């Protein structure tokens, strides 16, 4: 118990005492343009990434849910391997793929198209983040798709509904709790992103985790760093609370293991 609480307690205490009780840390970050910009960045990146992840992840989850258990288990290896691959390996790979002389730009150049800037900017961060998040949203969506009663779709088919109509009126609405759980899970993961922004993002396009690092290690202001960390924790807490309210939300984050 103690080893769980001690670190969090240290952060909370550091954000409030410096060395006497003070709310300066909080008032200073609220007035800081840098903090507001980074908070805005964090929310923008997280929301965009979570949204794109759902768009990318849903078809995969849908495809997986239609396979025989044997084939699904095999295809799941393709999902689990990147999930358990070091984030550094993934970031490095994206630098090779997206870089100025990377694979995509080499191909574009060889067919006579202009090179595009995909790295060290928002695009790079979003691509890297989405890739990291897809496995997290897959499981809740797949679970809710697998939990559906196939008779519903069959009945609709017999009554003459087209496949698109069945999907839009039955399958999709019934899977929405899974989508919500996956989306929230993706959001709470992205809030604390550090490595991806540091490696694939532009200089100055930071997220809150990078700001905590900056305050702790460069500026050596632990009070400010802790105030930012508590804010980040509160944001995550809000999402976790929402996750608890979504059906099957709490079991969602255990399934990855």
């Amino acid at each position: 118990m103690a080893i769980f609480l001690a670190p969090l307690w240290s952060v909370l205490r550091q954000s409030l005492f410096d060395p006497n009780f003070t709310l300066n840390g909080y008032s200073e970050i609220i007035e800081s343009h840098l903090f507001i910009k980074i908070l805005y960045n964090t929310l923008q990146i997280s929301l965009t990434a979570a949204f794109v992840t759902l768009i990318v992840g849903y078809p995969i989850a849908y495809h997986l849910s239609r396979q025989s258990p044997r084939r699904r288990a095999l295809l799941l290896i393709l999902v689990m391997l990147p999930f358990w691959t070091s984030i550094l390996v993934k970031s490095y790979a994206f630098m090779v793929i997206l870089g100025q002389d990377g694979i995509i730009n080499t191909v574009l150049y060889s067919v006579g198209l202009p090179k595009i800037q995909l790295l060290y900017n928002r695009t790079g961060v979003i691509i890297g983040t989405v890739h990291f998040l897809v496995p997290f949203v897959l499981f809740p969506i797949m679970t809710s798709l697998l939990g559906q009663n196939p008779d519903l779709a069959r009945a609709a088919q017999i009554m003459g509904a087209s496949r698109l109509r069945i999907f839009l009126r039955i399958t999709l609405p019934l899977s929405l709790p899974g989508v919500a759980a996956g989306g929230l899970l993706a959001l709470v993961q992205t809030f604390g992103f550090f490595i991806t922004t540091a490696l694939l993002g532009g200089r100055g396009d930071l997220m809150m985790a990078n700001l905590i690092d900056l305050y702790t290690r460069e500026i050596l202001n632990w009070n400010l760093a802790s105030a930012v960390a508590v804010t980040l924790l509160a944001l995550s807490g809000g999402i976790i609370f929402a996750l608890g309210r979504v059906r099957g939300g709490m079991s969602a984050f255990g399934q990855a293991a």
Partner: protein
Amino acid sequence: MGYVFLILPTLIVVPLSFNAGTELSFPPTSFSLAQYRTYFFESNWWEATVLSFWVGIATMMLSLVLGVPAAYALVRADFPGKKILTLFLLSPILVPVIVVALGVYLYFASIGIKGVALPIVLGHTLIAMPFVVITAMAGMQNVDRNLEVASQIMGAGRLLIFYKVTLPLLRPAIVAGALFSFLISFDEVVIAYFVGRAGFSTLPVKMFGSIQWEISPVIAAISTLLTLLSLGVCLLVAATAKDE
């Protein structure tokens, strides 16, 4: 298409690692083992790997010792606040790692412990243990309660039952938890980066520094080996799950 997006970055590092040159070029122009030679024989990289290995082993042990009995209690015993305790034990999965890292950093600064290995191991245990708890709790579903009751009737004490009946039945779950907690620690960057200092860099921290400043081609070789490690762990876990 989606599968390609998922798996491609993991695989792309493999051909790169056999490149001879010092700059990134794709497709590789020549075949060579130069990057692997640098990795294994240039002492810095190997030193970092050994350090990560021991940190990973220590994290694994600690996570198992704390996590398995916790999971056992959460499934078998009934006590007030059980739900809250479960949520609490699993919460480090959802708390941003950077907050855990800062917490460990501040905590050890405040109690004035100078060592570096201990804070890193404790930090890693915090984030790895929930995975042990989850896999062990899932494994407990397969442990037939009647077996425990039977041994109790025959006069075995609670501790004896736990060691002789429950633990052996939990073996696949424990193996999975052990492998995952080792891998989580072995690959972990943020806590090790925050708490570590010059001269005490785990492999991921050294990689992070190298990727950030000058991308050394050795990274491709290391990435390939790390991917192989992840693949090995995934397959091992799948194999132990099948034995059951």
